């Protein structure tokens, strides 16, 4: 029977719109795939790459279990074992867990928030390439036999060049830092996208809970990663140039590394947990057939959890000799962090209790999560108690605990999520012949492997050993643990085979096979590159959407932007809290620039690794130049004013509004930058008060007039940036002001170079000189980047991309130089205060 005329017309208009949008948004074939910037493509790449590293890290884990299956084993020598266990941990954490959550966030967040893509698609692509290249450096080192071998925590002094003279530690420091650049860029991307790029009407109280989880996680990443990036830079500087930040014989302190590492490491556990909790909070209501209980309480809980997770980094350092009273703060914090965690757990249980749960494979994995998470959480509270920690520290009990809280918390929700969203990715649903045995093999294997580690740990077996004596009570537990490891691996292999088999043999399904009520299902499956043919108008909480009614309406273009214009990739920007439509965001199209820039960054990193320092500097400058190039074709070369966006509404393009995504992106990037400077200031003060061999033999000196001239130069540059902005806003010529700012920045950099060259004591002789040089270098680097901003402004003015309405370039420059001025004054102030602080050390008893 022919369809009614109206329905047929609707279908035809939907198809026409689909073809037009597809032409604009699609990634090209062949080599053009390397230019992809689309979130769906990149999200899948992130997840697939993370799964590949998961497989490699899993094999490494199995090798360690073979070695430890029997006492006095000779399967691997000590050196090989050290590389294998270090790479297992590093890959699982840095190359699997974090990128996997990023992949899930990249793929799902825009869809769940009703947007067509992320705010900065090229940054997403750059983040992916950085991750891939950084991970490849680490994986290649394994093949070359020079993999990191100092543990995934890379503690000093073991990782200093005295005890690790090869490039093993350099591979870790550079590879991981490279991957962290990726994580930071994605964090900025996620925050701005969640806050500014939701569907119209999706106020914060209507946002799906997954959005809150991603927002809080990304904010945590923004502050958690800089301490480790700083630590890695300082340690690499020590190894390459001999600046003694961690060398106690020259005023450094090995424990400074532990502080910086765990300032990242402890929140990182929650950075991994929270997105998975977001996945659970999305799936559990669907399988319970009801809405999530305690939405507002969960929001409060995750905000609290995010903060408290930072305040308990010393929890990993209970045995290093910190005064007992200080330990009590971190012990209490480690215990109280269980409360917001429990709030979520009880909300999930209450949701299940309120609904009519139905069993399916994702629910099996959710069950597995509950068991492992509760056990891991309880052993976490045990380890939070200082006297217990003193007994269990450095034993296999700790290994068991963190495998429960990281392994269990990631693996079970991850596989639940893969099965749940598989129909969205592929348009097919699982057949489940292999899925159920795979789950039980994983669950039984996981429990056997890691639960028994608690016991062997309580019996006193230390961690980080490649062999152990034939103690009867240890031997059988280790053997069973290894057997469990192999059962678990078979389970994971079956699950992966099962998921791959679905791609070929899975049953084709229509949209929303789970009867979910979130926006990602209100699109064709698998999703087209533009996600939504038109954007929904949200009137209710966005996890209570009637998907099957909304989807056809959106496909017909009845929402916002249900048309194409100028070949632009368009989506909408909204007011942060209310979700009121505010601006028309035009996104950049596919480009090779992210790949080229990541290759250039990789060249800079590899040049450091092989000690071609001048080449590294050149490649860093090339990378900076490429970033300037990124900006040159962004935005519009003319004013448009408000443009129709559908449904009778007209909005200005993002280039013509003050709260454009780049503005917020810069603010959040500066938050991360500020976290790095704060970590550096913490390091300086920590060494001052705690490190041995202070004060140095030579009296510290800084040229006061030159330091003050530097600060004055920065203030003049800031005035120049403000002047150029005012000039353009008033339709006047800004180039004189830009010139003033450039000259002032150049003078400040010159003064800083002279200051660094004359630091006393010499940076190689004492940590006081090294930290002083680091503070000054921070200011010089920022002033240098300020010059790049000014250069970009000149080019953009010449290209006609700046006008009294389109001020975003100049506003970003002003913000950067203001930040440089304020932080520069603070850093130089600290440098000037250091001699007086050192003088105070004479007052110690």
């Amino acid at each position, binding site marked *: 029977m022919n369809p009614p005329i109206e329905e047929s017309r609707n279908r035809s208009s939907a198809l026409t719109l689909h073809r037009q949008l597809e032409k604009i948004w699609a990634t090209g074939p062949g080599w053009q795939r390397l230019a992809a910037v689309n979130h769906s493509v990149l999200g899948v790449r992130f997840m697939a790459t993370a799964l590949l590293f998961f497989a490699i890290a899993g094999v490494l884990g199995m090798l360690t279990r073979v070695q430890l299956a029997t006492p006095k084993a000779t399967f691997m020598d000590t050196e090989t074992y050290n590389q294998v266990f270090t790479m297992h941990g590093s890959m699982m954490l840095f190359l699997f867990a974090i990128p996997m959550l990023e992949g899930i966030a990249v793929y799902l967040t825009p869809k769940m928030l009703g947007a067509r893509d992320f705010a900065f698609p090229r940054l997403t692509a750059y983040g992916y390439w950085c991750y891939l290249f950084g991970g490849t450096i680490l994986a290649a080192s394994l093949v070359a036999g020079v993999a990191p071998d100092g543990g995934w925590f890379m503690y000093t002094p073991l990782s200093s060049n005295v005890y690790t003279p090869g490039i093993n530690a350099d591979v870790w420091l550079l590879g991981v830092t490279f991957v962290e650049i990726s994580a930071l860029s994605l964090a900025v991307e996620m925050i701005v996208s969640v*806050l500014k790029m939701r569907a119209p009407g999706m106020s914060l109280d209507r946002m799906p809970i997954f959005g809150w989880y991603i927002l809080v996680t990304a904010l945590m990443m923004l502050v958690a990663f800089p301490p480790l990036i700083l630590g890695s830079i300082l340690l690499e500087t020590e190894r390459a140039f001999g600046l003694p930040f961690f060398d106690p014989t020259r005023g450094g302190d090995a424990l400074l590394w532990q502080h910086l590492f765990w300032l990242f490491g402890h929140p990182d556990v929650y950075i991994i947990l929270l997105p998975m909790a977001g996945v659970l909070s999305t799936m559990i209501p669907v399988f319970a057939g009801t809405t999530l209980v305690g939405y*507002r309480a969960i929001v409060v809980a995750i905000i609290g959890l995010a*903060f408290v997770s930072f305040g308990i980094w010393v929890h990993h350092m209970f045995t290093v000799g910190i005064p007992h009273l200080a330990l009590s703060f971190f012990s209490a914090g480690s215990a109280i962090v269980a409360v917001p965690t429990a709030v979520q757990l009880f909300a999930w249980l209450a949701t299940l209790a309120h609904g009519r749960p139905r069993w399916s494979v994702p629910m099996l994995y959710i069950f597995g999560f509950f068991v492992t998470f509760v056990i891991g959480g309880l052993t976490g509270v045990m380890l939070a108690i200082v006297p217990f920690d003193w007994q269990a520290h450095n034993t296999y009990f700790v290994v068991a605990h963190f495998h429960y809280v990281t392994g269990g918390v990631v693996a079970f929700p991850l596989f639940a999520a893969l099965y749940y969203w598989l129909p969205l990715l592929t348009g097919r649903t699982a057949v489940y012949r292999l899925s159920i045995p795979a789950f039980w093999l994983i669950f039984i294997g996981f429990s056997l492997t890691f639960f028994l580690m608690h016991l062997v740990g309580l019996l006193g077996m230390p961690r980080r050993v490649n062999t152990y004596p034939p103690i009867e009570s240890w031997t059988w537990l280790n053997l069973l643990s290894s057997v469990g490891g192999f059962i678990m691996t078979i389970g994971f292999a079956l699950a992966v085979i099962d998921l791959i088999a679905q791609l070929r043999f899975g049953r084709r399904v229509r949209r929303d096979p789970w009867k979910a009520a979130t926006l990602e299902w209100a699109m064709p499956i698998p999703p087209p590159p533009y996600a939504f043919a038109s954007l929904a108008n*949200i009137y209710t909480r966005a996890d209570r959407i009637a998907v099957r009614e909304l989807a056809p309406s959106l496909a017909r273009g009845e929402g916002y932007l249900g048309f194409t214009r100028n070949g632009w990739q368009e989506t909408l920007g909204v007011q942060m809290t209310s979700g*009121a439509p505010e601006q028309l965001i035009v996104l950049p199209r596919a480009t090779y620039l992210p790949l080229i820039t990541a290759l250039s960054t990789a060249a800079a990193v590899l040049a450091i690794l092989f000690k071609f320092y001048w080449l590294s500097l050149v490649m860093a400058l090339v990378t900076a130049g490429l970033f300037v190039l990124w900006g040159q074709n962004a935005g519009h070369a003319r004013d448009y004013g408000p443009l129709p966006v559908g449904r009778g509404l007209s909005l200005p393009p993002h280039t013509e509004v003050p709260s454009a995504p780049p503005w917020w992106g810069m603010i959040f990037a500066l938050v991360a930058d500020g976290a790095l400077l704060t970590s550096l200031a913490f390091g300086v003060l920590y060494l001052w008060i705690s490190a041995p061999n202070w004060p140095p033999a030579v009296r510290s000196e800084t040229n006061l007039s030159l330091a003050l001239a530097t600060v004055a130069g920065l203030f003049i540059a800031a005035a120049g940036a403000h002047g150029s902005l005012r000039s353009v806003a008033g339709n006047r010529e800004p180039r004189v002001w830009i010139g003033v700012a450039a000259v002032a920045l150049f003078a400040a950099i010159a003064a800083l170079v002279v200051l660094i060259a004359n630091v006393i004591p010499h940076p190689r002789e004492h940590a006081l000189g090294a930290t002083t040089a680091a503070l000054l270098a921070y200011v010089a680097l920022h002033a240098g980047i300020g010059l790049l901003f000014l250069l970009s402004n000149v080019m953009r003015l010449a290209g006609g991309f700046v006008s009294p309405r389109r001020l975003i370039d100049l506003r970003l420059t002003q913000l950067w130089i203001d930040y440089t001025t304020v932080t520069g004054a603070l850093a130089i102030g600290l440098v000037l205060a250091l001699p007086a602080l050192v003088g*105070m050390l004479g007052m110690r008893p």
Partner: protein
Amino acid sequence: MAPDHSEADSEREMRNRSAVGAPAGQLWLLALGFCVWGAALVIVYVLHSAGCAFGWSTDALRLSLGLAILIPLALIGWLWRNYAKTAPDPALGPTGSFLHWVILWTLAAAFVTVVFTLGPAFLLTTCI
């Protein structure tokens, strides 16, 4: 429950609601209570380290730690009281009520966290 794109009333309601969206600056208040807790933790940790390193007397150290704990507590308590006294702006609609509720509870949670995590400073030996 379902968004109906033909409903002009709902459209108008959405636009009215949007016109008075809570200012973005209000989002910082979500973090305020725990920022005060974080600052208190850092200050107490630094004071304790400095006091022990420079050999302050137990009384002086305890007094400084006490002040460093009580001042943030008073600040969070004051913020909570002021915020609790004011009803959410009706013009901001349900979003305003939601943010008001969340801010209030994060302040309360931060207050409890200060007491629980820093309270031992009043009880334990200072420098061993």
